[in-house]
């Protein structure tokens, strides 16, 4: 009995000490419950998340000869993220992705696109991202290694209605690159109020394959891709973000790269290389071997300045844009050797060597890229936006992978995009948009050719994230 009395007294003392009302007690318990939840989330060894995105594209293309071609495509991308970031010093992030045209394998079962520079990479899950961050000196310095988050960079997140998806501005490039990076958190190092980050990134190229042999050549390009050996990309990135005194937030990124493309290896069995030199209606049926004996084929130097202002002046408007300058130095050229003459000697007999120019451009070129966009948020579920893009000859647009499988970022010419997003459910986003691209130069797999065409694209997307 004495024991019960002591317990009761202790309980009363505890209640008096806390002096809690029922509401306060509930708040405290709620607080503790969330502590547990947050604590558990922080210590989960492996975090799984991802998204599933399906885009329907209706394209209408009109070229200079008024030849129209329409194309309707449905593409899906399934991405699964496996992260381990509970350790304060070493964090690992990965994304596996499969991108595929609907039912493409039934109609073209033998085609398996295996190149990361293509938007649609096939039904196999591929490594889109796999890298680790190693933090030093109280997270003021970090070293990163692996396939880095180099795709879907800003301003993708505005039109995609997501958070930021990549480190580099999209118009600099959006392809998965392996590399090593050194990041200095200057804001922390110098006790600055805002965020200042400086990165140095190095990506060496490797080509472990032997001489390639390709047979498939489309009418749009004389050969699939150039095959090069050696080379590297070196980048410097400076970015800052913070709150605007006028209201809203800002982010600014300054990034440059120098990319060297190594010796071009020989490609055998290439067809259609000189198609553009034949009169309309003729087909280049020759078989060629294409390669270069020059040590390097090109060096590209580019720098981009990107800005974004969100909720500018405490309004519902977001503004964003970028300016990029590119210098392409042509350092080598390709030679096509006629291996099999099927055109009646139009380009000479077997063994004839023909210079077909350099990579991207035949000569040194300078180009520009200007992008501006704005988005208005009616509420947290619904927004509309518009973008303008102009890229001139001399630019090297590598913004290959885009959220809505758009070709606009790799267009040399001018383009407009209107988009709208509606969140049907918090994790289910419906997007609708319309794009117009006026192309002045088109990449044929080796270099940019003068063209004049207009493509109008209507796109609808549905994205589920989990």
């Amino acid at each position: 009995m004495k024991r019960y009395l002591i317990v009761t007294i202790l309980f009363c003392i505890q209640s008096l000490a806390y002096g809690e009302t029922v509401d306060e007690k509930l708040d405290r318990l709620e607080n503790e419950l969330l502590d547990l939840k947050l604590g558990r989330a922080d210590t989960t060894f492996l975090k799984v998340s991802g998204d599933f995105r399906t885009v329907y594209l209706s394209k209408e293309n009109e070229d200079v000869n008024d030849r129209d071609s329409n194309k309707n495509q449905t593409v899906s991308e399934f991405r699964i993220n496996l992260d381990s970031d509970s350790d304060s010093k070493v964090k690992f992030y990965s994304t596996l992705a499969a991108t595929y045209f609907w039912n493409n394998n039934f109609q073209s079962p033998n085609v398996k696109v295996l190149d990361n520079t293509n938007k649609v990479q096939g039904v196999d899950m591929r490594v889109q991202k796999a890298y680790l961050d190693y933090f030093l000196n109280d997270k003021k310095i970090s070293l990163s290694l692996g396939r880095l988050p180099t795709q879907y960079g800003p301003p993708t997140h505005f039109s995609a209605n997501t958070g930021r998806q990549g480190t580099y501005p999209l118009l600099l490039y959006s392809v998965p690159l392996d590399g090593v990076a050194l990041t200095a958190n200057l804001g922390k190092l110098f006790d600055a109020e805002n965020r200042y980050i400086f990165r140095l990134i190095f990506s060496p190229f490797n080509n472990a394959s032997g001489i390639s042999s390709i047979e498939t050549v489309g009418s749009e390009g004389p050969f699939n891709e150039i095959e090069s050996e050696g080379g590297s990309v070196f980048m410097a990135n400076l970015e800052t973000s913070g709150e605007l005194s006028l209201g809203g937030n800002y982010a600014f990124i300054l990034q440059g790269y120098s990319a060297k493309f190594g010796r071009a290896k020989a490609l055998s069995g290439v067809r259609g290389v000189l198609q553009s030199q034949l009169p309309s209606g003729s087909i280049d049926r020759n078989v060629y071997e294409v390669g270069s004996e020059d040590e390097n084929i090109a060096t590209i130097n580019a720098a981009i300045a990107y800005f974004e202002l969100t909720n500018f002046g405490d309004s519902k408007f977001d503004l964003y844009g970028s300016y990029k300058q590119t210098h392409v130095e042509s350092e080598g050229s390709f030679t096509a050797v006629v291996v099999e003459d099927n055109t009646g000697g139009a380009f000479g007999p077997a063994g004839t060597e023909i210079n077909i120019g350099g990579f991207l451009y035949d000569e040194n070129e300078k180009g520009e890229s200007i992008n501006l966009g704005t988005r208005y948020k009616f509420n947290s579920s619904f927004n509309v936006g518009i973008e303008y893009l102009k890229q001139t000859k001399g630019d090297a647009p590598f913004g290959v992978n885009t959220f809505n499988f758009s070709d606009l970022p790799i267009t040399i010419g001018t383009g407009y995009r209107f988009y709208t997003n509606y969140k049907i459910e918090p994790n289910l986003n419906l997007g609708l948009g319309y794009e117009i691209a006026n192309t002045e130069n088109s990449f044929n797999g080796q270099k940019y050719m003068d063209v004049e065409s207009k493509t109008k694209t209507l796109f609808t997307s549905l994205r589920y994230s989990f």
Partner: protein
Amino acid sequence: MKKILILGLLSFYSFGGVLEFRPELESICGKSNKILVKKILLGLAKQKRARGASCGSDLKFLSKSCEANVVCEDILASYKEFLNNNSSRNLIGE
């Protein structure tokens, strides 16, 4: 008997509230859930700490959502969306 009674009272007093307050979780912006909201915001800030002081817009967004009495699921989904999309996984070295 007395032992059971006292333990019963203790249990009710200590844990019974949890049962009562569970329905309130349906709306974390409700009056009795301010701490929960605060903790989510703190959690958000914690996730963003590595990135410095750039979390203003997200915090404001969540705060405004609460003011507009958006239900709990929306806030939690926004939080999860943030973790999925805007976390360090997309920023090299942060």
